[in-house]
Each structure stands twice: as structure tokens, then as C-alpha cells.
């Protein structure tokens, strides 16, 4: 140990800077700080890409007594960086014969239904089993795109249930409890009617494509013909 044990937020966004996952982790970390619970945050991607930073990664995990994974859903499960992180951490903990720690996860998806995240949470739970960690609960958030990479308090009224759920999580963790079922249920609640989300999200992609001058090519099938240079 090199510091006070606390919660390590491991953020699994593939983006280099602002992300919805980071916004969620930042909010929960602040709520925990207000309750006297120390935490630290790492961005997984640069740590797993650079071989020379492995010790930094392992030290961060070793210093914590609670690992909290926060990541976006990618093709029905964790993005590459989180898969690699879990492979590395599991091997490290096995070789170090590491003592027990707790694990929780928060997965956000660009689909409106939170249940798309359940397989990713099941994988996290299995990672806990195979890494001598105790599962403290998993949260699934649908319609994650509404956060827009902003700090949650600045992301508008739509995300209020998300903040309320995280407040409940902070209360529970500060008391040494696992993530409560009420917080899991609230986090999974649709932030808006699904049909509205589908239309708004589709329009958002179309609008950005229009700005890029490719709105007429959205259905392009380049692999059906020779690759463009």
C-alpha cells in the first residue's frame, strides 16, 4: 500500500478526454468526497496501451480496497481497453496472491433500454469471482448519450434520476454497504420514452453527417465494392 485505501474509479471510455463515463465517475467521486470517502480515478485506455505504465496501473489497484469500473457498452460488452484491464488485473492479483477487495460497475449504453448492459455486468461479476473480489453490485444506464460528456449537474433535467441514483450509491458506499437495489432500479429507469430517444439520436447522427457532407451516403456499403483509397 502506498496511500489510504479507498475507491478506485477505473474509467473505460475509449475517448481521450471528456466522456459520459468520466462524467458519471466524477459525480460519484464528488458525492463520496462530501461523505468523507477517498477515491482516485484512472483512465484505463492509456494505461493498458503503454507497457511501461503497467506498474502504475497495478499500484493504483493495489492501493484501493474497492474497484469501481465505469465504462460504455461496446458491441454488447466491455470495450477493448476494459477487457485488457481485467485480463491484466486478474493475472496480477493471482500472481501476487492479493487479498479480497470489492468490485462494482456502472455501464452506460447508447441504447435506451438499460438491459443491453446486463451481459457486460455479468462479465464484471465473473471477473470478480476469478480475481478474488467480492461483487458489490452493478448499475446499468440506458440513453447514456443524453449526458453529452458534460458534468452531470450541467447535463440538464433529463439526467436528474441518474444523479439521484448515484447519490443513493454514495450513501450506501459511505456506510460500507453494497449498491442498493433502489439505486439499480432508478438508474435503469428510462430517461425518456424510447421512441423519442430513437428519433432524437437518429436525427443527431444525421445532422452531424450533414455537417460533414455525407448525409446522403449514410447507407454506403464500401465492403461491397473495392476499398476507396
Amino acid at each position: 500500500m502506498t496511500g489510504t485505501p479507498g475507491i478506485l474509479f477505473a474509467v473505460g471510455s475509449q475517448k481521450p478526454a471528456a466522456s459520459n463515463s468520466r462524467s458519471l465517475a466524477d459525480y460519484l467521486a464528488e458525492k463520496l468526497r462530501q461523505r468523507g470517502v477517498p477515491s482516485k480515478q484512472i483512465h484505463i485506455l492509456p494505461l493498458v496501451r503503454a507497457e511501461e505504465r503497467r506498474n502504475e496501473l497495478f499500484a493504483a489497484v493495489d492501493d484501493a480496497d474497492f474497484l469501481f469500473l465505469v465504462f460504455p457498452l461496446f458491441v454488447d460488452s466491455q470495450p477493448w481497453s476494459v477487457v485488457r484491464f481485467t485480463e491484466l488485473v486478474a493475472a496480477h492479483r493471482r500472481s501476487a496472491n492479493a487479498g479480497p477487495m470489492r468490485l462494482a460497475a456502472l455501464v452506460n449504453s447508447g441504447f435506451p433500454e438499460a438491459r443491453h448492459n446486463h451481459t457486460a455486468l455479468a462479465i464484471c461479476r465473473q471477473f470478480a469471482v476469478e480475481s478474488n473480489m467480492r461483487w458489490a453490485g452493478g448499475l446499468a444506464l440506458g440513453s447514456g448519450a443524453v449526458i453529452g460528456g458534460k458534468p452531470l449537474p450541467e447535463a440538464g433535467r433529463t439526467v436528474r434520476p441518474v444523479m439521484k441514483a448515484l447519490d443513493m450509491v454514495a450513501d450506501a458506499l459511505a456506510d460500507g454497504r453494497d449498491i442498493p437495489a433502489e439505486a439499480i432500479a432508478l438508474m435503469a429507469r428510462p430517461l425518456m420514452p424510447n421512441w423519442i430517444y430513437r428519433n432524437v439520436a437518429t436525427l443527431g447522427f444525421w445532422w452531424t453527417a450533414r455537417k460533414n457532407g455525407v448525409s446522403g451516403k449514410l447507407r454506403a456499403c464500401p465492403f461491397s465494392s473495392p476499398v476507396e483509397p
Partner: protein
Amino acid sequence: MRAVVLNGLRERDVGQAISDEVRSCLEHAGWITEEFILRDHKVAPCVEDFGCWIRKPGQCLIKDDAQEITRAFLTCDLVVFLTPVTFGGYSSELKKVLDRSICFALPYFEETGGETHHPTRYDRMPAMFYVGTETTPDDNAESVFRELVRRNALNMRPPAYRVSFVSADTDAARVAEEVLALANEEYGS
């Protein structure tokens, strides 16, 4: 007919003989096969910028080996995914390529089976066979893996898919026969 093996095994994983056995079996039946040993390829992680949807639709903007691999994946008739069961999911080697395959989907949202999904960009997808290798069989990990494959199939919409698990004492020929059975079922012998 053409089959592609996406080999996401690491050097020490069990199941190293599977790919050779599967390819040999398929080739004996007249198939053309190609294997990508993913750990030997340069594939950068997806950067979540949706460039393949809203900047150059259908094509990832990152120029590396994933361009060739995803193209081969999409244009073949049967793809065999070979991966250690990693906490019930895929290995990082395979996942890196799958993350780069979102260019196969369209940036639209539609309701299918009571859930929102992206429509596929292409009318035709290959049949898919998933081989999960395990040092020690684990019922829970296998159950999660099956569910992950089912969820992937909801999004990628292959005409057919199967899952098989392999441990150190599994006969590679048995797996090859299962793959050939799927190939024959889907495309005729």
C-alpha cells in the same frame, strides 16, 4: 465458399490445434479458408468517434490491419471466432477487432423484438461459429458467453450461429465437425 478464422487466442491458451483442424476439415469439403492470428496484427482500439457512421460511412478512419480483417470477416460465408472464454466474454485480442466492426451497422435506431438496435448496413452477413476455450470448464462463464453470443447475433444478424466450448482434453476434430455441420446446414454440402 469462403471461411475466415479470427483467432483471438494468446500463445499459451488451450485450443491452439483447433484452427488448423477446422481449416483442414473445411478445405477438405471444398472451402477456401483464411486465418487471422489477431495477436500478430496491428489493430488500434476503436476511438468511439463514430467516424465510420458520420464522416466516412461504412469505413473506419483508422488505417491499420483491422481494415483488411473486418473486410474479410464481412465478405466471407462463415466466420469462426476462436477465443479464450475471458470472464464469460471474449479475449482482448478478439474484442479489439469486434469493436472495430461497428461500421457494419447503420447509425439509425429501430425497434426489434421489443428492444432498440441498429439496422445492419449489409443485407448479407456470414454464418458465425464461436469457439470458447477454457483451461477449466466453468458453467457460469459458459452461460455468460452464450448470452453474449446471443446478444451479438441480435445486432449482427448472421443467418445462423453456433457456440462450442473447448478445454485441454477436447478433441479438435469434434469441433471441426461441428463447424462443418453448420457450414453444410447453411450452405449445403
